[in-house]
Structure formats: structure tokens, C-alpha cells
């Protein structure tokens, strides 16, 4: 029967070429807009470290004075002071713990006549690499001992290794960063969480190629490298160079906690730490929090409002397109009342007529889906040529590809329901008489 319906559908499309083309086009535009915006939303709200994100947590506490504090309403700042970060690290209450701050590192190429340039870096502590499952191509990360001894070592990304050393094993070679020599001890495989969650509180949403230089925090600071991210001060400062003693927040601390019990334990430890520091007179405010990785991304509003608005708008547009398709399908099928009358008179059941029109709607949907895919690709192509940071990542993946057809088919079948129902309700006799 399906083949017969298909045949009928194709015949009817041929009879109303313009109307059919309009339906397909409208549906395709709606689907194209929806899939484009959803792809971007999914890209931006994605999990940067799927295999590990559930175990990664972000402690926050508040070093500000009591002035302006409202109990229960004041949120702790997103970043931490040096003393608090170091105290949490030294306590070793989590499986892994690391402090970090983003850095713009000036690299002076050894080859002559090449101008120096800035590379995105991060200064951090030894646990960074095992905690975030950072994959190494050559060598490895540094140790806690290297941190304490201010070792001049560096880990670089595969891309930087390609740029500076043509991709060969550069472990043991020297790299000149900010006028200091660092010995390369590790080269990463391609690794670029999207967004770069570990510095999201300091430098905002950050997409793209990822960090290219990793330096030990204490070594970098001993060489007076300044963090390039946000620095928030809560009291007058006299010396911005020595951030370790300044009343400013500038570090992010991440910890790995493997079980819910470990999370609860760590939260208790954090509460205890804050109360102890209040007793010591260093901290004033009791508020603290321990957010999960995805919680931090939500808190930091990594997905821009505009992207959500675009999705709503696209769905509104798709709805208009579906209503439009309902109207056109209805017009088409009511115009064929004569044909339906004949079929009904010759013994076709209501169900058969209904099925026939649903098949027709489905075909419109599939055609709309295919064309919609073209529009979505076009939309994403346009987005890739925008200056946004995430632009280069805007690609249709297999999931979205399949989802396009689900949306198209669902939209068209919903659109087809009303016309098909009206068609199958037609009584055979009056239609025969009229024609």
C-alpha cells in the first residue's frame, strides 16, 4: 500500500508544483534556522571534559570584609586569593588539587628575524595534568617537588611544538618565555576542552585551540609573570606586583573528588577551613561553595543569552512554518475532495485515506529536511565566518544530522494530521455528485 500512496503523493506534487515547492521551502527554512541555532547552543553548552566532569569540583570562599554583606544573599567571588588557594592545596583533602591562573606568555623564537609573539598560557601546579587527564605526546608534567623548588620547566601544546620545533620530540630543549629560559619536559597531544573551563572565571568563555604553554605557578610568579585574567581586589592595595600578599583574588582552584561521600567530606572540610580562618581573624564572611564543573559553567553564564534568544526565535519561526504548511497541505487536500470521494466510493477505508495523506505530508517533511540540512550547513558556514571565538567549531555532527530529520518528519507529520483528518472525514457521496 505504501508504494501506492507514494505514487499518489508524487502525482499530487506534480499537479501542484508551486504549492509543494512553497511548503518544502518554508519547512526547510524553519528547520534550517532551528538546526543552526541548536547546533550553536549545543556547542556552547557542551561538557568540556565528558569523561571526568562529574568528579571535578570548584571550591569558592569569600575574603571580603563584612561591609555590605547580606547573609544568605552574598555569593562568594569566583576566584581565590593566594593564601586561601595555597592552604587548600597543602591540605591535600582531595584526590587531586591544583591552583591556576591564565597567562599571556611572550615567546621569543630562536630563529633570527622572527618577531616575538604572545601565546596563551596557564600557570598552575603539578596536579593539573593528572586531574584533567591531559594527554602527553612526549615527556610528562612536573611534580609537586618541581613546584616547590621553582623549577624552570614547561609543558607545551602539540601545536606550539609544531610551530617551534617542527613537531619533533622537543623534551629537554629550551624555550625562552618572557626573557627567561624554561626546559621543556612535556609535549601534549591535541587537547583543547571547549570551553576552556579551568580559567572560565578569570577570562570568561574561551573557545578555540586551547592553552599552548603550561608553567609551574611558583616559578612563573618568581619571574614576575602577571596573570592575564581578572584580578579582583577587595581592599586598597599598595603593590600590584606582589599578588601573593595583595588583598586580591586571581586564582582558580580545582579539586578532583571521586565519590559523593568525598564531595560531602570536602564541603565539610571547606566549612571547617573557613571557620578556622574566621577564628584566626583572616576571613570575615562564612559563605563558601563547592560547585561541580557543569555548575561552574552555568554560574559563569558560559552560554551567552543571545544564543538562547536565537534558539527561541528559531523555534517560533519553525512554528510559523509548520502552521503555514498545515494551511497549504489543507488547501491542497481539500482541493482534491473529488479524488478522495472516488477512492472512498471504490472502497478505500477512512484509515487508508488518512494514511495516504500522512505519507504525503511525510514526503514533504523529508524533502524539507534535506533542504533544511542545506540551509543549516549554509547557516553554520555563515557563522564560521563570524569573528566569534567559537566560530571555527560550528559544524553539524552526526547527532544533529539525524536530529534534523527527526525534526523535519515530526514537524511535517504534525502539520499533516489536520489535513489528513479532514480528508478522511469527507463523505464519498456528495463529492461524487459535485463532480
Amino acid at each position, binding site marked *: 500500500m505504501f508504494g501506492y500512496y507514494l505514487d499518489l503523493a508524487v502525482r499530487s506534487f506534480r499537479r501542484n508544483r508551486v504549492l509543494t515547492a512553497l511548503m518544502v521551502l518554508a519547512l526547510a527554512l524553519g528547520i534550517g534556522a532551528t538546526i543552526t541555532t541548536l547546533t550553536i547552543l549545543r556547542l556552547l553548552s557542551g561538557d568540556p571534559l565528558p569523561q571526568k566532569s562529574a568528579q571535578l569540583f570548584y571550591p569558592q570562599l569569600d575574603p571580603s570584609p563584612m561591609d555590605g554583606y547580606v547573609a544568605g544573599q552574598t555569593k562568594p567571588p569566583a576566584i581565590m586569593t593566594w593564601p586561601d588557594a595555597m592552604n587548600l592545596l597543602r591540605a591535600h583533602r582531595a584526590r587531586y588539587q591544583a591552583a591556576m591562573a591564565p597567562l599571556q606568555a611572550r615567546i621569543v623564537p630562536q630563529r633570527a628575524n622572527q618577531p616575538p609573539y604572545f601565546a596563551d598560557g596557564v600557570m598552575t601546579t603539578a596536579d593539573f595534568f593528572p586531574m584533567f587527564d591531559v594527554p602527553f605526546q612526549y615527556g610528562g608534567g612536573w611534580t609537586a617537588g618541581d613546584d616547590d623548588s621553582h623549577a624552570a620547566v614547561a609543558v607545551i601544546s602539540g601545536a606550539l611544538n609544531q610551530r617551534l620545533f617542527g613537531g619533533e620530540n622537543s623534551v629537554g630543549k629550551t624555550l625562552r618565555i618572557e626573557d627567561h629560559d624554561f626546559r621543556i619536559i612535556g609535549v601534549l597531544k591535541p587537547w583543547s576542552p571547549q570551553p576552556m573551563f579551568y580559567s572560565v572565571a578569570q577570562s570568561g568563555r574561551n573557545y578555540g585551540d586551547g592553552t599552548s604553554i603550561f608553567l609551574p605557578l611558583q616559578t612563573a610568579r618568581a619571574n614576575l609573570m602577571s596573570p592575564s585574567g581578572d584580578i579582583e581586589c577587595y581592599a586598597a592595595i599598595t603593590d600590584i606586583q606582589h599578588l601573593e600578599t595583595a588583598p586580591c583574588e586571581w586564582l582558580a582552584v580545582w579539586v578532583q573528588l571521586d565519590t559523593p561521600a568525598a564531595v560531602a567530606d570536602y564541603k565539610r572540610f571547606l566549612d571547617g577551613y573557613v571557620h578556622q580562618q574566621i577564628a584566626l581573624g583572616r576571613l570575615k564572611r562564612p559563605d563558601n561553595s563547592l560547585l561541580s564543573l557543569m555548575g561552574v559553567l552555568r554560574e559563569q553564564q558560559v552560554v551567552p*543569552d543571545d544564543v538562547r534568544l536565537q534558539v527561541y*526565535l528559531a523555534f517560533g519561526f519553525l512554528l510559523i512554518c509548520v502552521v503555514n504548511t498545515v494551511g497549504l497541505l489543507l488547501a491542497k487536500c481539500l482541493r482534491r475532495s473529488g479524488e478522495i470521494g472516488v477512492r472512498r466510493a471504490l472502497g478505500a477505508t477512512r484509515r487508508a485515506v488518512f494514511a495516504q495523506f500522512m505519507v504525503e505530508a511525510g514526503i514533504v517533511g523529508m524533502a524539507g529536511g534535506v533542504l533544511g540540512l542545506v540551509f543549516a550547513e549554509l547557516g553554520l558556514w555563515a557563522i564560521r565566518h563570524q569573528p566569534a571565538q567559537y566560530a571555527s567549531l560550528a559544524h553539524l555532527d552526526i547527532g544533529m544530522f539525524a536530529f534534523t530529520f527527526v525534526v523535519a518528519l515530526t514537524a511535517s507529520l504534525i502539520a499533516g494530521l489536520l489535513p489528513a483528518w479532514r480528508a478522511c472525514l469527507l463523505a464519498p457521496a456528495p463529492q461524487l455528485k459535485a463532480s
Partner: protein
Amino acid sequence: MELRPIFATLRKHRIPAILIVLEIALACAVLCNAVFMISLRVGQMHLPNAIDERGISLITVNGADPKLAGSDIPRDLAALRGIAGVTAAAASNTVPLSTNNIGWSFGTSPDTTLSTQHTLNMSMYFVGEGADQALGLKLLQGRFFTNDEYADSKLGSGVLPGIHVAVLTKNAADRMWPGQSALGKTFYSKPNFYQVIGVVANVMRPWVGDEEHAYNAVYFPLAPDGMTSGYIVRSAPEDRERILQQAEQILQKLNPSAVVKGRTFTDIRNRFFADTNSMAWMLALVCVVMLAVTAFGIVGLTSFWVAQRRRQIGVRRAVGATRGDILRYFQTENFLLAGLGIVLGMALAYGFNLFLMRHYELPRLPGIYLPAGALALWVIGQLAVLGPALRASNVPPVVATRAA
């Protein structure tokens, strides 16, 4: 025009009529909100900015030894001023819209500290001699800094300069001392204090969050310092590209180990508003396509019921209706349907706006958008119905006599 027959036919074609109404309602709701969002963004991009935007460029020199800034910066400036076509050059830590922002909170009471409530957060511009000419700042009251004030002002290892003079933007001055002249007044951030010696026309901040705070900025004089690693170069607009290239080459040669990068202000502005701009275009595109789809839907449905009512039209023509009568009939019908859709659409638009206000801090939809949206949809409805209505008016009276 007699409306009763229209209502009678519409009651017979309830579903297509409801569909047209629904389509217009949805289009109206989306259109009003989308156009409003476009206008917000366009407004943002056209906020006034009292500097010579078309004439200036910024060249940053990052990574030079800050200890040598005292000799490097005058040398670099002399080289820049030597380039043909440069009318002014000065050192600065940042320029408007560059996203390179240092904000600090100040208050009017001597015991104001950083964490005090009721302070004003201002973006700080640290500028060297000649910056007022290089930027094209417009002085409204008082004066700009003297050579001595530039020379005596140092940051040291702190954040705020040692000298006690500052120039505020008009907005910052008005916020700090509402209804009074700011000239000669003092503002504080313990232990520092600054006397306002001048007020300039509103200049945007390096990073603009929302429009309300777009202009809160303060100018401090500063002797050559590692902080003032950017050079503002002013010239005729058409010379900018050439000067920028020359300046980059010269400065790179003078500072071989530093990273030298130049951009015109137009470039800086475009980059700052890139997202806003593309959102506005995307909204505009959605509006146009949506209206087209709506119009095609109306054409399709009206064509259908014109075809269905050929006999009825023929009868009307046979009993004396003119072509104009038939044309008007369909146009009135569409006017009524669109009207119904618009009423529904306004309620939807308002609801959608309420949702956006609650979740996305959007302002309330101004009333003017509703009649404007209504008018747009009425016009589109009338245009869409014109074709099928003309075809209907061409139905010859003789159709009435034929069996349908």
C-alpha cells in the same frame, strides 16, 4: 461594505481562517520582539563617543622592559610623530572599546574604601602628554593636565597614581555629584584622593557592560610607565592604514623583543560590536524570511478558497457585482482575518516580552512596536491577497451558469 456575507463564508471555512489568523498572530509576536531586539542592538552600536573615532589608531608595544619605559616611550613617540601625516601621538594604557579595562571604585567621602557601598566603578585611563589632542577629547569644563602634572604622576608598584588631579567624563561627574558642578570637588579611594580639574564629553569605557554605565570613566595623567604601553596616533582618516604599517615597522625595530600590534579604531569598534552586529543581522534575516513565509501562506490559502468559490463568485458577478466589489470582498476578508491575528499577536508579543524580561533582563517592549507591527502585517496581508483577489475578480459571470 456589507460584512455579513464575509462572516458567513468564514464560518464555513473555519479551519483555513483560523490558520491564517494563527500565522499572522505568531508572525506579529515574533516580529515585534525581534524588531525591538534589533533596535536595542543598533542603539548600543550607535551610542555617542566623544573622541575622533575615524582619525585614530592604537599601537600596542607589549613586553618591553618596564624599567626602561621612561626613555623608551619618549623615543617611540618621537619616532611616531616623525611619520608623515601623523597629527598627534600620545601614550595611554587603553582606549575605548578595546576590552583592556581597569575598573576601580571611588566615592565622595574621605573614608571611602574599595569595599564601601555607594561607590562609582569607573574605568581608568592613564594617559601621557598630548593624549587629549591624540584622542580628540572635548573639554566641557575646567582644563586638561599640565606638563608638570604628567611628569609628577607615577604609579610605582601600586594601582593608582601619586598625583592628586583627575578629569572625569560628564556622566561620571553627574553621577558622583548629581545636580552640582564637579569642578574642584574631590573623590576618594582610601588612601588616595583626587581633585576634579576638568570634565570631558562622554567617552565610552574600554569595556561596556550596559548602557547605563557605558560612560563612567576617569582620566589620570601619568609619566611614561610600563603601564602606558599603547600609543594613540591621530591622522586624517585616509592616512591611517599607511601610517599604521609604517608605525608597526618602526616600533618593532626600536623594540625588537616586544610584541608590536596596531589597529585602527574602526577595527577596534567593529571587533567590540561583532557579536552585537551579527545578532542584529540574524534577527533582521529571520524577520524578512518569516514575513515572506507568512505572505506565501496567505497567498496559498486565499488561492485555494478563491478556486473553491469560483461558482459563488460567478453568481455574484451575474447578479450585478462589479470586479471592484469582488476585489474588495477578498481584501476586506483578509483585513478582518489579519486584524484578528494582530489582536492575538499583540497578546502573544506582550507575553513573549514578559518572558524575556524575566529571564534575560530585556526592557519592556515600548508601545510603539505594537501598532507598527500591526501596520506591517496588515500591509503584507493586503499585498499577499492581491494576486488571488485579482484572479477572483476576473471570474466571468458565465461561470454561474455552468455546472461546477
